[in-house]
C-alpha cells in the first residue's frame, strides 16, 4: 500500500502541467471553465497541439503512433487537463473507434483511418443510439442490406454528439433482421457526405446544440467499410464500451467543479459574509468534498488494478453511478451558490439575440451546466442500467 505516485509518474504530471501552461490558450480554457460550447476550430486547434506533442492518443499502442500510457498516466493526464480547463479530447475517433480498428479493423482500415484521426482530417461521430432504444442498444433497427459491393443503409440514429462537426460516423446497423437481439448487428464506417444522410440538430434543455439526429435514406456504403465480420458488430461494440473505462468517474471534472464551486462560495456574499461561512452551505460542500476524496481513491484503485492487468467490471459501473451523482451534486450546489443569479437563463440555442448574462461571470452558465449534466446519469448506460450490472455481479441472480 502506497498512496504516493512514483517519481516517474510525478515527473509526468509536471510535464503535463508545463505543457498545459505553455500550450493551452487562455481563451479556450476560459470557455471550458465557464461551461460554454466550443467551436470546431477550438477543438481542432487543441487536438492539433496535443498531436504535435504525441499526446492526442497517449493511450494508443506505440505501433499506431501512441505512447502506450499506463492507466495511471492516462489518469494523471486527464486529471491535469480537467483542472486546467483543457477541452476534453473528443473521444469518438481517438478513444472509441480507434481501439476497435486496432483490434478488429483490416490493415487497410488501420492504415487509412488512424492517421487521419490523429491529424484531425477526420472527425468521427457515433451512430449507436436510436430513438426508442435508449439504454437497450440491442433493439436497434437501422438496416443495412447488402447490394453488390455496397450496403444500403436506412434508419435513424440519435444523440449523435457533435455530429454537426463530423465528416464520418461509425454505426451499428442490423444486417440480419432474423437474428435475435444482439446477433445480426454489424459495425459500419460511413462517410457523412454520402447522399441520403441528413443531420438534424437537437436542442437540449440548457439551450445548447450538442447532439443530433442522423437520418439515413438509401445510403450506399462500400462493403470495405465493414469492420471485422458481418453480424459480429455487437462484439466490437461491447469491446468499445468496456475499453478504457477508467476515466468514467470523471474525477478530474469533479475536482475542477469543486474548485470552481469553492471560489464562488468565497465570492458570493450572504448577509455581508462570504457564503462559505454559512454553516448549511459549508456542510453541503464539505460532504461533497469528503465523498469526492473517497471516490478519487476508489478511482485510483481501479486505475491501479487496470495497470495490474485486471479489467474493470462492475467497478466501472460503480464509478459511473457515484461519479455522475457527485458531479451532479457539485453542479447542483453551484446553482445554489449563485442564488438568485440562477434566474436569468441565457441559452444560445433558444434565444441568440441576448447572450449576455447580467450576473457575475462564474454565474453565467452555472444553471445551464446543472441542466446539461443531468445527462451524465442517463447516457452511456443509465445509472439504472449500471445498477443492474452491479446487481448481477454481486447478487448472481
Amino acid at each position, binding site marked *: 500500500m502506497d498512496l504516493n505516485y512514483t517519481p516517474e509518474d510525478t515527473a509526468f504530471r509536471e510535464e503535463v502541467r508545463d505543457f498545459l501552461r505553455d500550450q493551452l490558450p487562455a481563451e479556450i480554457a476560459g470557455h471550458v471553465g465557464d461551461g460554454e460550447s466550443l467551436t470546431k476550430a477550438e477543438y481542432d486547434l487543441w487536438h492539433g497541439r496535443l498531436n504535435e506533442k504525441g499526446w492526442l492518443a497517449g493511450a494508443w499502442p506505440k505501433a499506431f503512433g501512441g505512447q502506450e500510457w499506463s492507466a495511471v498516466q492516462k489518469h494523471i493526464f486527464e486529471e491535469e487537463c480537467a483542472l486546467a480547463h483543457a477541452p476534453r479530447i473528443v473521444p469518438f475517433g481517438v478513444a472509441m473507434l480507434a481501439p476497435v480498428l486496432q483490434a478488429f479493423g483490416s490493415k487497410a482500415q488501420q492504415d487509412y483511418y488512424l492517421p487521419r484521426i490523429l491529424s484531425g482530417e477526420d472527425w468521427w461521430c457515433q451512430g449507436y*443510439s436510436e430513438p*426508442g*432504444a*435508449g*439504454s*437497450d442498444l440491442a*433493439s436497434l433497427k437501422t438496416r443495412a442490406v447488402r447490394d453488390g459491393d455496397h450496403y444500403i443503409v436506412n434508419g435513424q440514429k*440519435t*444523440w449523435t454528439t457533435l455530429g454537426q462537426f463530423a465528416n464520418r460516423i461509425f454505426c451499428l446497423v442490423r444486417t440480419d433482421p432474423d437474428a435475435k437481439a444482439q446477433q445480426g448487428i454489424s459495425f459500419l464506417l460511413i462517410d457523412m457526405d454520402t447522399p441520403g444522410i441528413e443531420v438534424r440538430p*437537437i*436542442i*437540449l*434543455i440548457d*439551450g445548447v446544440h450538442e447532439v443530433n439526429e442522423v437520418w439515413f435514406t438509401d445510403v450506399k456504403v462500400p462493403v470495405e467499410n465493414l469492420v471485422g465480420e458481418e453480424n459480429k458488430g455487437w462484439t466490437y461494440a461491447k469491446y468499445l464500451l468496456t475499453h478504457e473505462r477508467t476515466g468514467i468517474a470523471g474525477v478530474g471534472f469533479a475536482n475542477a467543479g469543486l474548485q470552481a464551486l469553492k471560489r464562488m462560495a468565497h465570492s*458570493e*456574499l*450572504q*448577509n455581508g459574509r462570504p457564503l462559505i461561512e*454559512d454553516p*448549511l*452551505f459549508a456542510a*453541503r460542500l464539505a460532504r461533497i468534498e469528503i465523498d469526492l476524496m473517497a471516490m478519487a481513491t476508489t478511482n485510483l484503485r481501479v486505475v491501479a488494478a487496470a495497470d495490474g492487468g485486471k479489467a474493470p467490471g462492475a467497478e466501472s459501473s460503480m464509478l459511473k453511478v457515484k461519479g455522475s451523482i457527485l458531479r451532479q451534486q457539485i453542479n*447542483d450546489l453551484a*446553482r*445554489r451558490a449563485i*442564488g*438568485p443569479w*440562477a*434566474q*436569468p*437563463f*441565457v*441559452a444560445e*440555442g*433558444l*434565444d441568440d439575440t*441576448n447572450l*449576455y*448574462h*447580467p450576473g457575475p461571470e462564474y454565474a453565467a452558465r452555472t*444553471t445551464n451546466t*446543472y*441542466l446539461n449534466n*443531468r*445527462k451524465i*446519469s*442517463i*447516457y452511456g448506460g*443509465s*445509472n*439504472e442500467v449500471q*445498477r443492474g450490472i452491479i446487481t448481477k455481479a454481486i447478487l448472481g441472480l
Partner: protein
Amino acid sequence: MDFKHTEERVMLADSLRRTLTRGADWAALADLGVLGALFTEDEGGFGGNGFDIAVVFEELGRAGANAPVIEAGLAGGLLADCGQAERVEAVISGALKPALAYAEPGLRYDTGPITTSMDGGTISGRKSFVTNAEGCDLLLVTALDEAKPCLFAVDPADPGVTLHTTPALMGGSISEITFDRAKAEKLGSADTLDARIAAATLAVCAEALGAMETAKAMTLDYLRTRTQFGRPIGSFQALQHRMADVAIEIEMARSAVINLAGHLHDNGPTRDRHVSATKNLVGRTAHLVAEEAIQMHGGIAMTEEYALAPISRRLIAVDHRFGDEDWHLARFMRLSA
C-alpha cells in the same frame, strides 16, 4: 376542519384549467377573474385569501402558463396597501400590468438593506431580478426616502430607466434595472412588503405544485407507454418504487401549500414560519420531482422539444425565487427558536 375548496374556488379552478388548455391571453385571464381572485373585496377584488391564491396558481403551474400574474398580485397588492384604488381596479380589469422592483444586487435573497434612494422627486439606484418588467405598464420601486424604505411608481419608459432583460429560468423575463434620476411618484411606505412577499411565495409554491403534478402525469404516462427491453419501463420495480416516493412527496408538498394558505393571514412571525416551512419543503420537492422526472424519462427529457423541459426548469427555478431551501430553513430555525 374542512379540506374542500368552496364551490366558487372549484369553479374558478375548473374554468381556468379549461381555458388554459386552449391558451389564454391577459384579457382572458382578467375576464376569468384570475386577477380579481388575488384581491379582497375591500381592495376591489373577490378573493385575496390564501386559498384563492393557492387555487389560481396551482392551475397556472399545471398549465405551465407564463403570464405575469404573480407580479400583478405582488405589485397590485402593494398598490392596494398604499390606497391606490384606481390603479388596483385597473390591475384587476387587466388594463394595467405592474411589476415590482425591490431586490438589489449583493443582497442575495434578503430584501434589505437597500441603497436605491429618492432625491428631489427622482430615484437612483440598481434593482435586480425584476420579473416580467418587460412589457409592464408601471414599475413599482422600493427606495429610501429619508432612510426609510418607501414605494414609488415609475414609468418604465422614463429616460432614467434602463432595463437589461434576459429570459428567466422559470419562464417569462427577468431584468436588471438601473434608475438614474428617474421621475418617481411616492405612494407610501414599504412596510407591507414582507406580507405581500409572503403571499407571492405562496403563489410560487402553489404554482410549483401544479408543475409537479404535470411532471408526474407526464412521467407516469411515459412509464406506461415507453417500452424497453421488451416491456413498458413502468413495469420495472426500481422505477415504480421511486415513482411511489415521488407521489408521496408531492402529496406532502400539497399539504405544505395548504398549511401556508391557511396561515397566510396570521401575525408576521407565525405567517413567516409557515412561509419558510412551506417554501423549504416545496423547494426540496420541486427539485426532487424535476430530477426524477428527467431521470425516469431518460434522453428525451433532456431535449428542448419535449414539453417537460420548461416544466423542469421552472421546478428548479422555484428554489431561486423569494429565498431558497437553505435560506428558508435558516429563517424557520430562527422563527422556531
